[in-house]
């Protein structure tokens, strides 16, 4: 895999997609699909669902390319957001979640984030966020990370962590507020 293209390059590709440029679309796919597929596999844990979600994600990106603007965040964040919500839609539709026996799938997709090829700026951003997450209680931190990485909702978190739903919801909300406040500084 070649080095990650700069956000600027992705931005240009999305802009060209908005003009109907399919070569740009193919390039956008090549540049970003491995990342999105990892994200989708981690949340959906089933190859076929992840493939379905990836298809929908890129079709949406193509159709909504004209809605993208740098003001709405970095291009990769925009794409990941489409993918994650696509995954949530699929989970909702399937109304079935594979059991804990497939946790290994999710675990195998974990990367430490200190990949030597990763850009220093992204590593720096991750360190800042991690520093804020470290300030949370272990339960709060685990809830937020499971929700983000594996797409667990409050009910699933309650089952996984064996705590009442109300407790989980409180952890999540307090965790969010603390992260926001920490990242202001």
């Amino acid at each position, binding site marked *: 895999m070649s080095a990650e293209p700069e956000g600027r390059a992705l931005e240009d590709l999305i802009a060209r997609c908005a003009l109907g440029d399919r070569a740009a679309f193919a390039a956008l796919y090549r540049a970003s699909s491995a990342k999105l597929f990892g994200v989708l596999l981690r949340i959906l844990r089933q190859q076929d669902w992840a493939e379905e979600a990836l298809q929908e994600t890129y079709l949406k990106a193509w159709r909504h390319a004209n809605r993208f603007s740098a003001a709405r965040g970095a291009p990769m964040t925009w794409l990941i957001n489409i993918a994650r919500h696509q995954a949530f839609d699929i989970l*909702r539709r399937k109304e079935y979640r594979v059991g804990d026996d497939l946790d290994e799938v999710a675990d195998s997709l974990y990367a430490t984030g200190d990949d030597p090829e990763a850009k220093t700026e992204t590593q720096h951003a991750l360190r800042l966020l991690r520093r804020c997450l470290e300030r949370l209680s272990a339960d709060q931190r685990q809830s937020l990370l499971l929700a983000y990485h594996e797409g667990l909702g409050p009910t699933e978190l309650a089952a996984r962590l064996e705590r009442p739903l109300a407790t989980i919801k409180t952890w999540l909300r307090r965790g969010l507020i603390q992260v*926001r406040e920490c990242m202001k500084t």
Partner: protein
Amino acid sequence: MRYDDPGLRDILAGEYALGTLRGRARERFRRLLESDAKLRQLVTAWQERFAPLIEETRLVTPPARVFLAIKARLEAESAPVVSKRWQRLGFWQALSAGVAAVALSLAILLGVLQLRPGTVPAGPSYIAVLQDEAARPALIVTSYNKPSWHLVIEPKQIHGVAPGQAMQVWTIARDGGATRPLVTLAVERTQRINLDEAAWKLVKGAEFLIVTLENAGDVPQAPSGPTLYRGYCVNLKGMGAS
């Protein structure tokens, strides 16, 4: 609903970005997002806060069939007008990797090949599965060099044509992209067509086969009607099969 409380709005935006807003609450929030630009900004801010976590997920290259499926769906959406043909061809050519493998697996799926491991006993040399705009397999073209050069064209799901019209099969060359007429298609039945050396060379050098709608009785030198079906031409002998 309490969506005017600033504190609550931001927390809901955070929960939405995190993915913990579920069910009807999520649906309501989504509808609200459509018309509330400030709320969208809050969501974006949360997405950016969490975005660095993406570095903690490994890259996984998706199978080639995913992009092929995406491409097929985009093709299906675009109007089947002849002026777009070259543009679409360019798109096809942009994704050569994996296309052949997918065409082959599709062919196996359709049961046209009974491949035994490592061998293609007296089997076809080339195969193209031609699809319609919705990426449904429409016809399968196989070509053989034994006992003599010939083509077998097997219709799977093709539409009839009006009287006075005909379906023409064309080759599009791998080198240079020249479009050359190959044969006229019979709609109803499987055809076996003998090829002369010139026609065999066209098949051999083809990257794609396409079918266009033409006036019956004409011997067209270039497509004049819309493209109905298209398919990537796979060299089976070149895939280590024999």
